[in-house]
């Protein structure tokens, strides 16, 4: 079973914050509010390395633009101990563009952007709709399900397997592997390295077979691209990219679908309003992304970086607290309220600056299809036991158990 990293109680959030604190994982908003008012750049020396936590929207926006002084070479929120960090000092993540700075970040990102452009991702809508309907067929007659495990978790790994041309039956393995890197693996470096290696080995096999014998699929297309920087190391580059697409698209999207169903399963007024008015879906889903932003990234300073009153020293980390930024009253009216008809919503759940989530159009499509399909088939539902809901936090926050009754 997954358990968060062991955590000692926090006395002072300004100098000793802990994003794995159980209360913080459940609801980080009160901590952000306090910090924003008193100490908008909190710090901690937990987990081996000094790490800063911004909570203001303007600060997160500004920090995301300090490239490459604040580097993406080690983008996970917890750094691996040096003796275990065998892959190019990058938390064991060989995953450009997310683990790269320009110029490598630019050309690897340009390789994948066209497949994720707004019109291109529409190619996956029908598959996703069928998938969601089949999942619902499986539990609708029971009158109950675990909306995280039986529904949200099932969708992204199958969509990405479909896109990358992998055996759809491996979807459950993908979920386990990705959680091994992003959830369990944050607590226990051995587990992170174990699952990182499982993923790498799987991908090396898949990519190598396509390098020998191209197929009519996306990985073969990537291998065949005419990119001067990739010449002579196509397999390595494409394995890295596939690694990222697998890791970046699963926990994240699953969390955002689960959070949306959690919200509507605990807020009957919002649920009824949305069920009665389809036209609210676009603003409602953006509001879910803002309020329940799942993803926190990290940067590592490659030199001393002065920032306001502080200096981020060479080798220290900064958390890209996109979720906290999205609750800043200076950027959002009634920031701590969910307004499903919020029309002005400049949220940065998908990041900001050059690393803007390359998969955001696909993620939005998956959210749109999965929540709409759920509402069409199951317009009346509620979380059956709010105390039984569990959350994962850290790099990716979202519900992991979500018992639902309908």
């Amino acid at each position, binding site marked *: 079973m997954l358990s968060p990293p062991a955590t000692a109680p926090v006395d002072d959030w300004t100098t000793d914050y802990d994003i794995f604190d159980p209360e913080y994982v459940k609801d980080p908003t009160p901590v952000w509010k306090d910090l924003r008012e008193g100490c908008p750049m909190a710090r901690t020396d937990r987990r081996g390395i000094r790490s800063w936590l911004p909570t203001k929207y303007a600060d997160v926006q500004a920090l995301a633009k300090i490239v490459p002084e604040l580097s993406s070479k080690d983008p996970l929120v917890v750094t691996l101990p040096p003796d275990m960090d065998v892959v190019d000092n990058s938390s064991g993540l060989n995953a450009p563009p997310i683990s790269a700075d320009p110029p490598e970040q630019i050309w690897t990102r*340009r390789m994948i*952007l066209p497949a994720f452009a*707004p019109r291109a991702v529409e190619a996956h809508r029908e598959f996703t709709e069928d998938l969601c309907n089949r999942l619902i067929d499986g539990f609708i007659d029971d009158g109950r399900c675990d909306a995280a495990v039986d529904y949200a978790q099932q969708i992204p790994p199958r969509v990405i397997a479909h896109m990358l041309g992998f055996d759809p039956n491996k979807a459950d393995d993908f979920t386990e592997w990705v959680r091994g890197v992003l959830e369990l693996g944050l607590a226990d470096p051995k587990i992170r390295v174990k699952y990182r290696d499982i993923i790498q080995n799987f991908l090396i096999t898949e990519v190598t077979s396509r390098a020998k014998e191209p197929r009519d699929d996306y990985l073969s297309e990537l291998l065949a691209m005419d990119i001067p920087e990739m010449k002579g190391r196509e397999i390595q580059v494409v394995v890295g990219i596939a690694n990222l697409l697998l890791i970046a698209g699963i926990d994240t999207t699953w969390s955002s679908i689960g959070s949306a169903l959690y919200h509507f399963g605990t807020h009957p007024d919002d649920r009824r309003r949305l069920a009665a008015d389809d036209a609210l879906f*676009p603003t409602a889903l953006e509001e879910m992304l803002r309020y329940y932003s799942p993803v926190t990234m990290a940067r590592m300073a490659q030199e001393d970086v002065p920032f306001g009153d502080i200096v981020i020293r060479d080798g220290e980390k900064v958390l890209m607290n996109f979720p906290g930024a999205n609750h800043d009253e200076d950027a959002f009216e009634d920031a701590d309220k969910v307004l499903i008809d919020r029309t002005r919503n*400049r949220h940065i759940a998908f990041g900001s600056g050059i690393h803007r989530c390359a998969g955001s*159009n696909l993620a939005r499509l998956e959210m749109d299809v999965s929540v709409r399909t759920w509402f069409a088939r199951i317009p009346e539902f509620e979380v059956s036991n709010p105390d039984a809901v569990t959350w994962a936090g850290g790099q990716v926050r979202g519900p992991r158990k979500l018992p639902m009754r309908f």
Partner: protein
Amino acid sequence: MKLSIDSELCQGHNRCFALAPELVDVDDYGEAFVLNDGVVPDELRDKALLIIDNCPEFAISEVKS
């Protein structure tokens, strides 16, 4: 009213194209550009203001004549 998109700032969040495909489009890399030289018909004024306020990169602005 006239809109412009700063291509240095745009990172392809696609909020603008999702909200106002009458006013902007995106290229293969998801980067946005204005249609019709950025000229906004009167009846789309509200939409233009909406996309200005929803761009996470502050890349869209009104051109003051």
